[in-house]
């Protein structure tokens, strides 16, 4: 796409605003709306959108808007926490490979290749089956299976930066490796790390929703967009609206995060 600087900046601003808005709504929405997302009311079950329940009720008479807000909070929190976890792993393993010398490099990179070869979903379901499904477990499992791209990126950039004159100069002046990393290498890494992390948020939210959907993620009665959809599939014929909202929310979130990532990449690599 011929994205001039202006349109790319505008896209970034719009996408960033949507992401912020979603995060804001997830944070204070449940408080403002004030309807208990887990309150059962079987007399008013499976109602289409209307008075009292703006988005209708589910099969147990729970308010869909309330659950959507509560679910958004869970989905976004798990998504962001998982990305933080994977960024930490990716950065440290990448730095270890890039600065730790040849032998350490090849050990870390073979390990990275191996984890990449295992389908992430299966590694996660094995982990969750063995350790039990808790929110923390979910975050760690998603984080532990999504750091590989970042680790490779950080390593490649570090290997390139290491040869730069200013790094050699710093080393000649007796700068220690850790300071070299934080002071001289990290500022250079930041743009590409930021892009990779932004895309990671979308992937993590998709993974969380898929896991909750198959029943290995956020456990009912707590709501998440994934397990709301899992419920909805049983009542697809009678209450199709139940399957629409959570899906639209996931799509909206992931699209805006990815647009933001794309725009950040355009800004980080002007040559592209």
């Amino acid at each position, binding site marked *: *796409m*011929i994205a001039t600087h202006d349109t790319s900046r505008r896209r970034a601003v719009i996408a960033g605003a949507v992401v912020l808005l979603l995060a804001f709504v997830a944070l204070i929405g449940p408080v403002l709306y004030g309807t208990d997302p887990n309150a059962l009311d079987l007399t008013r079950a499976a109602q289409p959108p209307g008075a009292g329940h703006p988005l209708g009720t589910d099969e147990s008479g729970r308010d869909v808007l309330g659950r959507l807000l509560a679910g958004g909070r869970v989905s976004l929190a798990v998504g962001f926490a998982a990305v933080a976890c994977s960024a930490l792993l990716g950065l440290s393993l990448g730095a270890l490979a890039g600065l730790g010398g040849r032998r350490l490099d090849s050990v870390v990179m*073979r*390990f990275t*290749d*191996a*984890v*990449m*070869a*295992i*389908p*992430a*979903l*299966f*590694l996660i*379901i*094995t*982990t*969750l*089956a*063995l*350790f*039990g499904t808790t929110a923390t477990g979910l975050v760690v499992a998603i984080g532990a299976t999504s750091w590989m791209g970042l680790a490779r990126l950080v390593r490649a950039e570090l290997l390139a930066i290491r040869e730069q004159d200013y790094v050699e100069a710093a080393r000649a002046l007796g700068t220690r490796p850790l300071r070299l990393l934080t002071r001289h290498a990290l500022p250079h890494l930041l743009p590409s790390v930021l892009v990779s992390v932004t895309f990671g948020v*979308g992937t993590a939210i*998709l993974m969380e*929703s*898929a896991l909750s*959907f*198959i*029943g*290995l993620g956020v456990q009912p009665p707590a709501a998440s967009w*994934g397990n709301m*959809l899992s419920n*909805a*599939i049983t009542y*697809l*014929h009678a209450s*199709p609206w139940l*399957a629409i909202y*959570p*899906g639209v929310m*996931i*799509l909206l979130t*992931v*699209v805006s995060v*990815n*647009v933001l990532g794309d725009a950040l990449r355009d800004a980080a690599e002007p040559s592209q």
Partner: protein
Amino acid sequence: MTAFLLRRAVHALTVVFVVCTVTFLLVHLAPGGPAVLADPKLTQEEQAAISERLGLDRPVTAQYAMWMARVARGDLGESFLYEVPTRRAIAERLPNTVLLAGAALTLSVLLAVPLGLISALRRGGVVDRIISGIAFLAMAVPTFWLAILAIFTFAVAFPVFPAGGATTAGAAGGLADRLSHLVMPAVVLAAVTTAELLRYMRSSAQTALHQPFVRVARAKGLRTRLVAWRHVLRNALLPMVTALGIQLPRLVGGAAITETVFAWPGLGRLGVQAALGRDYPLVMAITLFISAAVVVVNLLIDLLYLWIDPRIRLEA
């Protein structure tokens, strides 16, 4: 060339070794340790007896060696839920997954290659924007939601295709029946892969477009279409082979979700059911098997490179 092959084979073996080790560690770090691999309803004495029989009272290193020896022999234990060797449970479901993933992959390549090329040729134009926009959406849409929408549209609202399963229960299961069951899951599974492959294809075609040989071909006066389909396409396809290898684990993971929604009796759905039913040996066996399969396919892709790219043959 032998050195190249040898290096790749060692690489593949290392990966399989690490996968086995990771699985072993997961089991040992899990609450309750590998003793949970036995029936949780057993008494303490019975568990102790099993621990002794399985060698769980021995040092971890010895257990690790035992586990590796078992895996090397292809013995991955017995499933709790189905009470058959995990090997047999996998063999039963494998053909269905191969069929589904194969159909989805074929569809993805057939769509992504021409669309990606067109997108690159018309970079910035209306066609490119439409194609790239749809690909962008397809990458952000949850597979299982797409599956639900497909079922609602084509099985509930307009019943064109069956909502799930691989064959109609009780029917003879002819080719037409199998195909009509395959359409929806294959298309849904292909969506994300197509989008990802399309983006690779678009960028590798763009790289090829700026190569000197393309400029020469144009300068010679060859028609644009001929240059595109002969010179650009062939060279853009090379990186696509690598992209296929990268996409494979994701495709198999996506297959697990798709199989679950469409009640497709494949390996992925078996894995999900095993995880939900706490059938640890089966979950681990499936994870190991799929990872090994991915490694083998990637090895085959490296071999394929030797065949299609003479430059590697000369270098190696």
